[in-house]
């Protein structure tokens, strides 16, 4: 007989103008990993925030135990030691004076339980981002909660770190914990979950045991439509070389007109560093055979390089400014009509070009970043993780744009951590491992296994 840890019944939540959750029921048993999947905006975060007590709601929730939520954004104090972060908000103390011995002993116990080989005295900010996420998870688990919610926990983890996390989650499940697992990475979901609930447009579409599901079914339910033609690939004939980098951070490569060059690799392989270095510091770069000197991004823009940066909120957008302001930031001489045409062509869903970018959905924000760089009329366009954290519908639109731009003769360099994306869109693929090229494939010879082997440094 299974024990119910959590029962959410007929939950509805209305925000001004939107019904974010519509009569959603969700439950969780002991010794279970229950995955929650859906496009961005499907209502996953709202549901979790209701569980965390952030919003009020209609419906009923019965909880058998404390709930610990690991949010997507880090909630750590970088200046504090690992142990202080694990204890934050619940420090052992006598009359307000911290009992350091007890605090460190407790942290060590939690880290040991998770079999994490970290020194609790280490200052958290000196850890890599993946290890910080593991500390975050340790912090959540230190609360002795039997219900654990993980929101996109592997987004910033390397494959090795993700393996550590998966092992931890499996051990917790064995010990009777119930885990709600939210992820865009359906591979992980299928590997870990016992049951999978699909949310779409604020409704729970289905809850099924994993054994009765397959990947295509889940994707179809998430999107609400068939996804056969997921990666558009027009027949293209790459022409002459447009862009050449020689020995930038030890890497040399070329891109041709009408070609999509994919750069694959694990997080930390140096992909973003490479494209950022080209754009910000230059090196031996030539465009259309002419050497160009790049000392600053404005040189790169003038030379005809566009750079859709990763992390749009941090590097890509002025969130409290308008679509127009953002679109024309790198090409300030653009006239209004051109900016509006670009907004229509990219199908940016906003009431008007004067809407504040921060109010748009992630997918539409990403399209604004793309529009910004297209308005500089680049000869070569670098895209760094262009579809991270956006929903499948918006992803497909970005894919179509990439395909269209390449067909129109632009040279495109695509950096992505999502292997299917690289495999599906690229004419040619470079694989980086520890900052060096460890493999090159053309479309015909590229397989997921071969690319991963190079990316992990295990290629023959």
């Amino acid at each position, binding site marked *: 007989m299974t024990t119910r840890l959590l029962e959410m019944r007929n939950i509805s939540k209305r925000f001004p103008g939107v019904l974010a959750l519509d009569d959603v029921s969700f439950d969780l048993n002991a010794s279970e990993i229950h995955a929650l999947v859906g496009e961005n905006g499907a209502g996953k975060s709202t549901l979790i925030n209701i569980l965390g007590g952030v919003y009020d709601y209609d419906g009923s929730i019965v909880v058998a135990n404390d709930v610990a939520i690991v949010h997507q954004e880090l*909630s750590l104090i970088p200046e*504090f030691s690992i142990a202080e972060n694990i204890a934050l908000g619940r420090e052992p103390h006598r009359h307000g004076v911290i009992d350091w011995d007890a605090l460190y002993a407790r942290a060590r116990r939690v880290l040991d339980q998770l079999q994490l080989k970290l020194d609790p005295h280490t200052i958290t900010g000196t850890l890599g981002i993946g290890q910080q996420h593991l500390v975050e998870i340790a912090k959540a688990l230190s609360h002795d909660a039997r219900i654990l919610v993980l929101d996109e926990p592997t987004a910033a983890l390397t494959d090795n770190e993700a393996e550590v996390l998966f092992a931890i989650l499996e051990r917790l499940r064995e010990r009777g914990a119930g885990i709600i697992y939210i992820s865009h990475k359906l591979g992980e979901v299928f590997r870990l979950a016992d049951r999978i609930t699909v949310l779409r447009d604020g409704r729970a579409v289905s809850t099924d045991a994993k054994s009765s599901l397959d990947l295509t079914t889940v994707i179809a339910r998430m999107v609400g439509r068939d996804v056969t033609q997921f990666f558009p690939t027009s027949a293209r004939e790459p022409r002459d070389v447009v862009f050449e980098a020689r020995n930038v951070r030890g890497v040399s490569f070329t891109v041709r007109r009408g070609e999509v060059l994919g750069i694959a690799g694990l997080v930390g392989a140096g992909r973003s560093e490479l494209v950022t270095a080209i754009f910000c510091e230059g090196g031996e770069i030539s465009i259309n055979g002419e050497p160009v000197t790049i000392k600053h991004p404005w040189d790169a823009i003038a030379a005809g390089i566009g750079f859709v940066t990763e992390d749009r909120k941090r590097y890509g957008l002025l969130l409290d400014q308008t679509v127009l302001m953002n679109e024309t930031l790198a090409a300030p001489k653009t006239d209004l009509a051109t900016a509006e045409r670009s907004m229509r062509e990219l199908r940016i869903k906003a009431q008007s070009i004067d809407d504040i970018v921060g109010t748009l959905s992630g997918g539409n924000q990403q399209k604004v970043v793309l529009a910004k760089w297209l308005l500089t009329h680049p000869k070569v366009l670098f895209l760094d993780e262009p579809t991270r954290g956006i929903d499948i519908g918006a992803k497909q639109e970005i894919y179509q744009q990439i395909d269209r731009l390449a067909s129109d003769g632009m040279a495109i360099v695509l950096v992505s951590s999502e292997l299917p994306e690289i495999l599906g869109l690229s004419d040619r693929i470079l694989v980086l491992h520890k900052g060096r090229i460890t493999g090159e494939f053309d479309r015909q010879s590229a397989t997921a296994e071969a690319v991963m082997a190079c990316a992990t440094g295990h290629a023959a």
Partner: protein
Amino acid sequence: MKLRAYTMVIALVVIWIYFQIRTGLFLYPVNLANLFKQMCVTGVLAVGMLLVIVARQIDLSVGSLVGLAGGIAAMSQGWGLGASFLSAIVVGLIAGAVQGTLVAYAEIPSFIVTLGGLLTWRGMILYLTKGETIPVRLPVFRSLGIALLTPVSGIVIAAIAIGFLLWRRRFIAAILAGVFVAMMNAQGGVPLPVIVLVAVAIAAHFLTQHTIFGRYLYAIGSNPDAARLSGINSRRHILIAFALLGALVGVAALLHTGRVGSASPDAGTLMELDAIAACVIGGTSLMGGRGKVAGALLGAMIMASLDNGMSLLSVENATQYVIKGIVLVAAVGFDMAGRKRFQ
């Protein structure tokens, strides 16, 4: 952090050696005693300022509040020493709590609230004193700013301090404490205000490093969202930090008024800038989450050394301002160049 601390210590030593060579008497016990007496007011203010800066706030009003609290203390001498001292601290505490409430609960940026405070407190003391300077009549009040401990009590305090420091294996600090008391005794004794500063500093160090309240100030300053999600009541902590700073401003006002011997309505002008500069030179980040009491004291000592040395060299007031301004900006500039956390 470590490297930065050493850089500032080296900077202080270089400044001292330079002034010693140029003046020939900078490092004499009599002058060092002067230097330490001078740094006490800034030191107490800097320690208080640290509490609000680590929580990512700022207080621009402390100079005016020194004037107000010192003035009220001088005006209430008629009710006795206790009432006089208490009034300064209570006035500071209330003013700080009012500003803290406006920052934490009304969510008005602290820059604005305390800019308003800067004007308001100064206006109040001008009104209360009608622009007149009030002399300090109570001898104990006067001695708070200038009195020397007898050499014997200095030795007793030094023995206790050295014993404690040896127990905590702080050997260099123990040696410095011994050298300091010996030098002060050589010119008559340890100045009383230095003892006040040391007591304030020890209490604040303990508060910031070993209590939940203190650690939460850092957490709030470093990552407000994380602090909130960890169940920390940021508002109350910010309010209390401002109130504590206010109380310490009261203490600084007593030291300052006692040392000068009178409370003038423009007392304390620009002291907020010295206090903020001391924190920042001592490694406190205006972005919150970073900074220690020892650093703030080091910063206060660097500022006081510049003041003292330049006065000995008869550097003009105008030049002194320019040099202090450059030192402040340069110190932070080196810090940023050394940090380069991004890219």
